[in-house]
């Protein structure tokens, strides 16, 4: 078993082992979960460090048969696009386990089993090079979400939230599954689920435009629903508001990235013409996320709904980056995915901590908490600043790249997106700080709060913040890894242009040299 396989296997094995734990061993369940996710995170960091920068192909490949007759394999590998996501997912998984200690007071064993399955599932999905397994692992991660919200969730809307999030995400999964099956059937016999082979096949024998034009929107909207693409976003704030902290952290931070990853890895390179045709629509819909959900976030009174809406808004930047179909934009989109995963986990973790202290997230009833919560408050200020795109945090680097990438193709959309990032984001993030941390203490709702005093309580937040800062100060650590892999994807997606030029070449042979140059570069 190599490093990568271990990363995926450990959470599942830990979950399996935990099944045999006696129910009363609550502390042991926590410790096993923490040990497993901690080991996963360490291995993921090691994987990230050992990953050889500058190579476009997959590394750490391993292949274990699952159903040979059907051509389905546990086939794992990392390239520049998913190596950062796996790192982010493993770190968030560890942080989510840590923050659950104080929050989950009943049925700990079941909770940690579900959490581990969730973590293993989403990491497996990111690492899979087999389309079937890619989807299969995602369902492993998704189903525990519903159970966790239903059983350990909070608030009066818990049941409606569970119901709504389940329906939405199942519908999204089914639509994207239909798209994936349609894609699978387009390849000639003998068919394969292998992503790399499929991409090669579709590059050599492109799918007919008519089919691409049907398959791409299936994938775009199917994946889009999973990522809370406007106007299919209303499940997200409500679901996260009702979810236990760890679930919100994992789903908003990591699992949601599945749809975006699918768009970048599968939909765009395999249906390039469909992408060219449909992505302008995505570029406009992303304004729904950035502006509309930003405005909605401005009006929220509940901190979790504010964070939830802002998280939906941030997805807009990723959509815009993908829609730009430039290397700058797509690299930026991947960077935003990693940054946002860490940030969403951080903000939901902090709001969970706050809820544990105050039993309310109504911002009108808070105020002046910074004096009592120097650590949590400072972490929150930093998180909110990262959320409104402050340089120094990874989010800024990603968002800036998205703007640079999208500027030439969509100047007006980019202009509005910049407004959303710089102004609307600042308005609601600073409002949250002002209402919760600054100002005088609320006279009607005086509470005594405990700051995160020991290292165990601080560790998850410190770890997430540190990662955000590292990638914010040195985004090159990520972008230099992303670039070669993203380049292959962007070139495949823009293949339509080179083919058009090839046709033109027949008419004007003098221009041939230029095309060759473009191809070689």
């Amino acid at each position, binding site marked *: 078993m190599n490093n990568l396989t271990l990363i995926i296997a450990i959470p599942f094995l830990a979950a399996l082992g935990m099944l045999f734990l006696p129910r009363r061993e609550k502390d042991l369940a926590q410790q096993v979960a923490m040990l497993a996710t901690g080991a996963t995170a360490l291995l993921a960091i090691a994987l990230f460090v050992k990953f050889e920068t500058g190579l476009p192909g997959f590394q750490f490949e391993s292949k274990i048969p699952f159903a040979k007759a059907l051509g389905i394999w546990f086939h794992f590998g990392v390239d520049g696009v998913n190596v950062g996501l796996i790192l982010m997912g493993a770190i968030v998984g560890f942080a989510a386990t840590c923050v659950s200690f104080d929050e989950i007071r009943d049925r700990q064993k079941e909770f940690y089993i579900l959490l581990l399955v969730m973590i293993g599932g989403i990491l497996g999905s990111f690492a899979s090079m087999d389309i079937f397994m890619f989807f299969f692992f995602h369902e492993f991660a998704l189903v525990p979400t519903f159970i966790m919200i239903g059983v350990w969730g909070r608030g009066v809307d818990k049941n409606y939230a569970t119901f709504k999030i389940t329906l939405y995400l199942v519908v999204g999964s089914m639509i994207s599954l239909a798209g994936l099956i349609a894609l699978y059937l387009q390849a000639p016999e003998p068919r394969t689920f292998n992503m790399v082979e499929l991409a090669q096949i579709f590059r050599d024998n492109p799918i007919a435009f008519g089919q691409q034009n049907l398959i791409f929107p299936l994938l775009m909207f199917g994946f889009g629903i999973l990522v809370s693409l406007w106007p299919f976003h209303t499940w997200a704030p409500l679901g996260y508001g009702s979810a236990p902290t760890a679930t919100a952290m994992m789903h908003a931070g990591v699992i949601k990235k599945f749809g975006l990853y699918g768009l970048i890895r599968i939909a765009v390179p395999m249906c390039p013409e469909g992408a060219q045709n449909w992505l302008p629509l995505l570029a406009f819909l992303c304004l729904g996320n950035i502006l509309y959900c930003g*405005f909605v976030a401005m009006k929220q009174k509940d901190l979790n709904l504010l964070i939830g809406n802002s998280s939906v808004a941030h997805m807009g930047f990723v959509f815009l980056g993908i829609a730009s179909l430039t290397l700058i934009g797509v690299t930026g989109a991947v960077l935003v995915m990693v940054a946002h995963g860490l940030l969403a986990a951080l903000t939901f973790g902090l709001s969970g901590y706050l809820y544990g202290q105050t039993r309310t997230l109504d911002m009108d009833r808070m105020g002046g908490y910074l004096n009592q919560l120097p650590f949590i408050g400072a972490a929150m200020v930093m998180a909110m600043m990262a959320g409104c795109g402050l*340089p120094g945090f990874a989010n800024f680097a990603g968002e800036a790249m998205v703007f*640079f990438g999208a500027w030439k193709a969509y100047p007006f959309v980019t202009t509005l997106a910049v407004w959303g990032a710089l102004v609307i984001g600042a308005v609601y993030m600073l409002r949250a700080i002002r209402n919760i941390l600054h100002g*005088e203490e609320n006279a009607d709702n005086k509470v005594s709060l405990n700051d995160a005093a020991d290292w165990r309580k601080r560790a998850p937040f410190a770890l997430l913040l540190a990662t955000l800062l590292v990638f914010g100060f040195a*985004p090159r650590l990520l972008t230099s890894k992303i670039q070669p892999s993203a380049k292959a994807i962007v070139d495949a997606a823009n293949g339509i242009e080179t083919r058009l030029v090839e046709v033109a070449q027949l008419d004007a042979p003098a221009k041939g040299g230029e095309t060759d140059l473009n191809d070689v570069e």
Partner: protein
Amino acid sequence: MDLHSLIWIAFLLPLAAAVAIALFTRGNRQASAGLSIGAITLSFILTAAYSVVTALNQGGAKASEITWLSVNGSAPGDALNIGLGILLDPLSLMMMMVVTGVGMLIHIYSRGYMKDDPGYSRYFACLSLFTFSMMGIVLATNFVQMFIFWELVGVSSYLLIGFWFGRPAAADAGKKAFITNRIGDFGFLLGILLVWSAFGEVSFSVIADDIAHGGNKLVGMGKFGCLPLATLAGLLIFCGAVGKSAQFPLHVWLPDAMEGPTPVSALIHAATMVAAGVYMLCRTIFIFDDCALLYIAAIGGFTALLAALMAVQQDDIKRILAYSTLSQLGYMVMAVGLNGHGEGATAAMYHLTTHAGFKALLFLGAGSVICATHHEQNIWRMGGLRDRMPSTYWTFIVGTAALMGLPPFSGFYSKDSILSAAAPWINGHGNVILFVIALIVAFLTPFYMTRLVCVAFHGGARTDHARHAKESPGVMTKPLWILAFPAVFAGWAGIDAIFADHFGAHAHYDHWYSYIVGPMEHAPFVAAMGTGLALLGWYMASLLYKDAETDPLPEKLGALGFVTTLMRRRFFFDEIYQRVFVAAHDAFASVANWFDRWIIAGLLVRGSHGTTELVGRVVRMLQTGNLQTYAAFSILGAVALVIVFLIA
């Protein structure tokens, strides 16, 4: 080790201090202050040493860069290369000296001013972060680096203005400063995107070379509405300066920023933050075409006048100084806009340098007064402080004289260079209207400063606090005395020659005595006008406010008394913005929220859920399990089919 590593060290030291304080010395007040003060002092020494050794790199700029981000795609234009580095030329080195020099004194002064504050360590951490961010702007080699540190200056100012976050007014002021600045940054970032899309580069030197040798690539790029893109790019970049340097229409944050501790006000108003806007304009002067420069000059002139008028009727000592900063910044921005062959930028940077010194002096003096009168800021509740606080008083007088532009104080020389840049008959790039505005401001400045001095320092004490005021301790008065020196002598040092050389303009130092009488030599009329108006303003204000108990101006103006109300209420800009822009943004948000709640989540989602359930219920009614009912339905169906066929 190359010599310029010194500047890298100087640049990174304050960051190291901020991090060290945040991580290790939060509990140890003395260590925090020591780290922060030590870092900036060392930065100042290193910068000074480097500047002396290399003679400010006047022979040619030096740059050193690390790659921050680099993406190179296959498609043409799909490449983005951003470095972080230091650009060392006379412009940046002079500015570094101002930032670290004035900043250092403010750091030291803060030790005394903040000594009883529970957030002492946090204060010094933020101060160091602020210094680091400002140095990042000064040393920036490219637009993106400048934007990055631009934002960091914004956030440090947010943290410092809202330092006493428990006070609602301070928390609101910090928020307002940050968001107003963000509006300016919105334009700035768009400008950077536009410039990048034309040149494929963000580096200052590459773009400047490109324009010098191949012409401005933006010129051929068409128009946006009626504005050529070349002008638009300049105006968008200028938006950044409008935010940071608090020019009209984004000037509203600066007076509110007085809610921060007074040394912070001094830092923001003198050497950092607001100076950043003017510095950025001078650094990127190559990107502005004539049309953009004209807009810039007009905005600057308008701000100078507007702010000077507002200052005339303020009662808060810090607010008066805040509006005077606004007004002086307007002067500088106007000068940049009247650039000509570099004369404007020279004058702007010259005034920026001298102003940094004497404005820091004035703010620290005001801080000393505020400390001595138990945090009283209303000048009408002071009085007679001259005798009780001699050090503060005399240094304040020196600062005031410099700000008024009286010879031979430093402000006279730099203000004179701005007036000559505006005078149309001197270099042909001036503008009559702006020249007249500049003269009016030259009259108003001494007027409101004399009012401040007369009311706060002269006459008799009006309150007990003023009566029992004591001179501040040495840690606070010594920086005042040190700052008084440049306020007197900085005009004789030929600082403008350094800038003139950098911008390719000509400085007039024909004889040895030109250093002192230069302005009278080459433009005697302008110098005489400036001095005459300054004296007139001083004379009128001292007549009006000598021994005044309340402000006599509204009465004196008679029928025009409503003008003073306008001035006092700051021409209602805050109210208008609140009613129009904030309300519009809020209305959008309300509509979106309503739509989200009732239409998307309510009608569509719950609606389709409800419809599905309703259909389910209706269909369930049919499933009775009763055989007779089913048989009846079958027969009815058969009959219906027969009828359909028969009719067809």
